[in-house]
């Protein structure tokens, strides 16, 4: 059944499978419960059973049915927890550390993409920043893409339906999430946390290129923007960090 969007990443299938696993348990529980609800309605209706029995339910003989059901529920809960923890562990707790790094920064109401300069790191002086409406982030296929997620103003949420990934971005902290696309194409990157008036229009794209196309794209990008190589002198670093202490003008403008 194709009730999910097309899955294009290494872990999207896992999340879908997790859904079907839970769905199996839930469907069984649902069917049993509905039978347990409907059957007595017919069997013990006023017509079919004019006199009720006196059952308080405190006796072991009667209460055992609930105990059995709860033990079964606890067991399926346990299975669900074990399986889902594997997926959680893979996606959130032990993300890979090697791969292409990109920066995604939420502003009202657009996603700003940051490609690393020649040093391969984000948030350094040689970054290439793309801040256009409906812009596209190019990433290579079959490679770990490490996304550094930040926000400039309010809380946004990076939502990649095809990758089954959702992550809030908060001002003041960096969240690192990863994704590994298995299929080339153009996918949506949506903001799914309400972020103001034009929240509904906050949508950009991730374009997954083959390795060759991606290399060519990066080469073009470097030529066009000509990122300055990073100056590593200690003095520069010191002034950088000093400047960093002063908050940007707009974040305090309200005050």
């Amino acid at each position, binding site marked *: 059944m194709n009730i999910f969007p097309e899955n294009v990443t290494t872990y999207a299938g896992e999340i879908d499978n997790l859904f079907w696993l839970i769905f199996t348990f839930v469907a069984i529980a649902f069917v049993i419960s509905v039978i347990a609800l409907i059957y007595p309605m017919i069997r013990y209706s006023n017509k079919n059973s004019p006199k009720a029995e006196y059952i308080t339910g405190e006796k072991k003989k009667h209460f055992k049915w609930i105990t059995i059901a709860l033990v079964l529920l606890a067991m399926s809960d346990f299975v669900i927890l074990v399986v889902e923890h594997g997926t959680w562990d893979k996606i959130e707790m032990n993300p890979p550390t090697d791969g292409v790094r990109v920066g995604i920064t939420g502003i009202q109401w657009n996603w700003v993409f940051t490609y690393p300069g020649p040093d391969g790191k984000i948030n350094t002086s040689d970054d290439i920043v793309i801040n256009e409406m409906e812009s596209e982030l190019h990433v290579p296929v079959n490679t770990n893409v490490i996304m550094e997620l930040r926000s400039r103003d309010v809380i946004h949420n990076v939502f990649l339906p095809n990758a089954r990934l959702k992550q809030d971005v908060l001002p003041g902290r960096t969240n690192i999430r990863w994704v590994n696309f298995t299929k080339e194409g153009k996918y949506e990157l949506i903001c799914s946390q309400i972020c103001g008036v034009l929240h509904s229009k906050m949508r950009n794209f991730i374009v997954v290129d083959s390795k060759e196309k991606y290399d060519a794209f990066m080469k073009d990008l470097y030529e066009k923007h000509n990122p300055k190589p990073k100056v590593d002198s200690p003095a520069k670093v010191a002034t950088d960090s*000093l400047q960093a*202490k*002063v*908050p940007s003008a707009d974040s*305090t403008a309200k*005050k």
Partner: protein
Amino acid sequence: MSNSSTTVDIRQTPQGRLGMWILIAGELIIFGGLIACYLLNRIRYPEWGMEAVHTSTFFGALNTAVLLLSSFTIVLAHTAANNMKPRKAQMYMMLTIIGGLLFLVNKSIEYSREISEGLTFSSPKLVASGKEVGSLFWSFYYIMTGLHALHVVVGMTVIFIIMLQIRKGNNLHRVELAGMYWHMVDLIWIFLFPLLYIAK
């Protein structure tokens, strides 16, 4: 069927005290939530120690002593009320209110000193010197002490109203309830004192 006098009396604690305890538990959680937020940030920013230096331990200690003494007087008012001495209870309640006023006077002297030093929650001085994290300390300082001062005012009002009510010797059990609220105000301060004035 029974007669009415015994039926409503199945109780362990008089209902006023019971209600008061629940209210106090609720208030403790409100303040506790604020204190928890402060502590979480205090642990996060060790540099707040530099800001806490500016609070005046002397005034803080003085205020603690004032509140402890006023707690003492209100509890004496409660004893007097128990002994059916409304005049004496009123006197002790008056002393408690004076204690509260003294507390507020101290507090306002403290505030004016700090504000004149430019230590406010949106202090341009702190922000300009790159110590905007320090201004968060002052935000917490003012909100915690301010909310507490508000409770002092409420407590004083309640004590004053009840002081008027017991004039004719009825409603004497309410003295204890007002006292409990006042003690709660006191014990919140007991915890705020080391938090803001001593731990530097």
